[in-house]
């Protein structure tokens, strides 16, 4: 997880860990498989709340087992959590670096 600082929304990996955007959603899935120094077999669902440096914020919405399918119910729950997270973190600041 230490490599999260390198992540950008256009990236498909957090250094050596695969990361993908969930189709039609604004959240991403980070697949934790072996060799990363933490328990494997999980997928971490997260979203990014865009804020200027140095306050870029990533919100972890859920940690699911790797074999769990993102059903419509799960997606609905994740969307709700995303809304809550965004609203709590969303102090909308000017984009200092024009991103």
């Amino acid at each position, binding site marked *: *997880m230490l490599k*999260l600082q390198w992540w950008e929304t256009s990236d498909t*990996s957090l250094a050596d860990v695969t990361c993908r955007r969930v189709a039609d959603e604004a959240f991403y899935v980070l697949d934790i498989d072996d060799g990363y120094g933490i328990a494997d077999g999980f997928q971490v669902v997260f979203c990014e709340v865009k804020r200027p440096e140095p306050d870029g914020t990533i919100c972890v919405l*859920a940690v699911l087992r790797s074999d769990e399918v993102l059903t419509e119910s799960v997606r609905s729950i994740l969307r709700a959590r995303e809304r809550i997270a965004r609203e709590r973190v969303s102090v909308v600041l000017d984009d200092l670096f024009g991103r």
Partner: protein
Amino acid sequence: MTDTMLPDTPQTMARLDSVSCLLDWMRDMEPALRRQFVGALMECSDSIQQAVVSMMVIAKDQQAAPQDRQRALTTLADALFLRPDETDKDYGQPLAESETYTAKINPALNREVRTMNSQQEFFARQVRAIMDSKRLSQQDLAVRMGCTQPAISQLLDRLPHCRPQKRTIHKLAEALAVPPQELWPDLETAEMLDAVARFQQDDYAMTVAEAAALSASGKSKVKLKPKPLPTRPRR
């Protein structure tokens, strides 16, 4: 009146379903809890209220998987701050705190944290040193980076305590007219790792810079997927 308040539309039906769901939900609550629940709900924005209702629908759905119903309830409680043990806590966990905890339980990560901290301190010192050596004011840097002087001031103040993103390092390097590695020596490694991971995408086309980086790193296992030649329409 009915026409304006309750037009016969799918939206009206959806709203009535939501109200019905809400009333049904509150029916068995103790009066005090009901007041707390309604009060919390009314304080929420429209967006969160919609999220709450959608969670109620899942929580009440007998067809939904038990873990999903539990997740929906947890989310609902979180949205309405109905978990008194957590209402006074800040949301989320600062990166530094998270890293300190993780490093304690994993020596390998501890080494990486130390390396990153060292690079972070180096980065903060370098930016200031280069600004001094080139006699660049915050205003000068702001103009070069296309932002305001207060933004630069804020960035410099917090540099020793933050991890910049790659694009910020690149933008700062460009503004200071130095190679990015002069600000963050390990940047090449991070970029090479990112590039290697990107090659695994089926439709990824390698850039010249990435090809050079890969070649320099001695990685030979990368296979480039050939792109089909454009076809000419038959006459």
